[in-house]
């Protein structure tokens, strides 16, 4: 659906490169996360996908069209097929929720009756039917972002770009908006590119993720692989930011292993079985049980002491990954 080939972006001659050779493939119908610290080039990358920014090198192909090669009319046609949602919403403060949602339809020169019908439908889709005539200043952050999402979906795009769509929202509202985004992906088959600096957002909705650091993709793959078995220091640092560092492990006088389970295994009494079978005492030093999208996972730092430690390791490895 989306292909980036050796994409470079430099702002102004002599400026530092915001993107320095990015290759990415995003498949139709997936939720693709792009995570990185502030200034990594995430916004620049996503803005290339609807031509708000032009690459200074490489190719950006969206649904078969080379974005950089489009003329003004071609670009407008592409933008009708690619919706975008922003961190600070970008709503017209002078227009009601309904009028904001109607904007792309008016821009597309739809007849008034068709605009009205579609707006009603969209208000229902994002759960704002009762707020149609409110101005953005009268809406909460979560409601504003729902208006932003409805506006982005108005012209029935195939791709939805979300640039830090939940970064201005509280945790509860973030979960609601992410649930809405996941539902849109599931129900409408929308391809979603989701920019974030929070690993929790990736865990909750993404299928695959790319880690961006100073304009380069340093790690890229299914969320389970990247989150549960990070290879690059930047990814580990992002995970550590979210409180994933096993510090207690340092003070354990015995063998310390990192044990990762993914899927149905998480509910099984693996640790007590291993302890019973091998006579090894197992201490849980750090850990997290959660979900990657809808699949449960557990990641524990275990201290092994006494009994047959080697057998305990081997048995654990039969139920998950041991490192």
């Amino acid at each position, binding site marked *: 659906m989306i292909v980036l080939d050796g994409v470079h972006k430099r702002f102004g001659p002599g400026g530092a490169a915001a993107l320095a050779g990015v290759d990415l493939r995003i498949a139709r119908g997936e939720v693709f996360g792009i995570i990185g610290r502030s200034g990594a080039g995430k916004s620049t990358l996503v803005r290339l996908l609807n031509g708000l920014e032009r690459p200074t090198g490489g190719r950006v192909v969206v649904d078969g069209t080379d974005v950089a090669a489009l003329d003004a009319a071609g670009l*407008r046609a592409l933008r009708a097929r690619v919706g975008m949602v*922003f961190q600070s919403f*970008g709503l*017209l*403060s*002078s*227009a009601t929720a309904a009028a904001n949602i109607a904007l*792309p339809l008016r*821009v597309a020169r739809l007849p008034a009756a068709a605009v009205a019908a579609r707006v009603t439908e969209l208000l229902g889709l994002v759960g704002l039917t009762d707020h149609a005539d409110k101005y953005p200043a009268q809406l909460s952050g979560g409601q504003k972002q729902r208006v*932003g999402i409805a506006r982005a979906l108005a012209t029935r795009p195939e791709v939805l770009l979300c640039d830090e769509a939940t970064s201005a929202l509280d945790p509860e509202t973030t979960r609601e908006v992410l649930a809405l985004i996941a539902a849109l992906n599931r129900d409408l088959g929308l391809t979603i590119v989701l920019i974030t600096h929070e690993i929790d957002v990736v865990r909750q909705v993404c299928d695959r993720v790319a880690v961006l650091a100073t304009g380069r993709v340093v790690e890229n793959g299914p969320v389970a692989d990247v989150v549960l078995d990070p290879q690059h220091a930047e990814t580990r640092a992002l995970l550590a930011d979210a409180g994933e560092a096993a510090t207690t492990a340092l003070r354990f006088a015995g063998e310390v292993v990192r044990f990762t389970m993914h899927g149905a295994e998480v509910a099984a009494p693996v640790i007590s079985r291993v302890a019973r079978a091998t006579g090894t005492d197992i201490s849980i030093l750090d850990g997290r049980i959660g979900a990657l999208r809808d699949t449960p996972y557990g990641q524990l730092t275990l201290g092994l002491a006494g009994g047959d430690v080697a057998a305990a390791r081997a048995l654990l490895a039969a139920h998950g990954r041991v490192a």
Partner: protein
Amino acid sequence: MTGLLANIDWGDIAAATRDTLAMLAGSLLLTIIIGLPLGVALFLTAPRQAWASRAVHGVLSVVVNVLRSLPFIILLIVLIPVTLALVGTSLGVVGAIVPLVAGAAPFFARLVETALREVDRTTIEAVLATGATTRDLVLRALLPEALPGIIAAATVTAIALVSYTAMAGAVGAGGLGDLAIRYGYQRFQTDVMVVTVVLLIALVQLLQMLGDRLVRRFSRR
């Protein structure tokens, strides 16, 4: 009778007030018709905007700055030949409108440009991201979003025009300024001066109140 308002000819005052209002209305209308597109053009040709062009922006900027840097009284005199060529007379309400607009339109255009710059950058991008043309952007986003600012700009401009009309009075435009200078100043009829000044103050107050009310009516932030 040598009463308090002995020198006042209320008929003259009424006629002068009518002339002032006519000059104000005519010049304000034309100022908005010319200044609004000029302000939009100044905004759109600025760096990183839809029609970004250093050359066009530079030329527009210089024209606007030159017209704004001339004191209005000088503009009045300098423009006499232009006015004659355009409307056939440099006198009366009609003759005053050309220099009034030449003085006020660049001023208004700058204020419009400033009001448009206040429009949230993300909002502009969000509108462009829907596939909007520049025309859509201007008509459906920039002008509605900047409307309170543009109304405030029109108010400030209208008040500046009131003072310009009084100056224009000095070179034969008529109106309250003319009355104040001919009777109040040159013939020492202080009461005429006082009445015209009071009327001018009332007019400015009225404009400000009207402007403020409209700004509040259209503010949604």
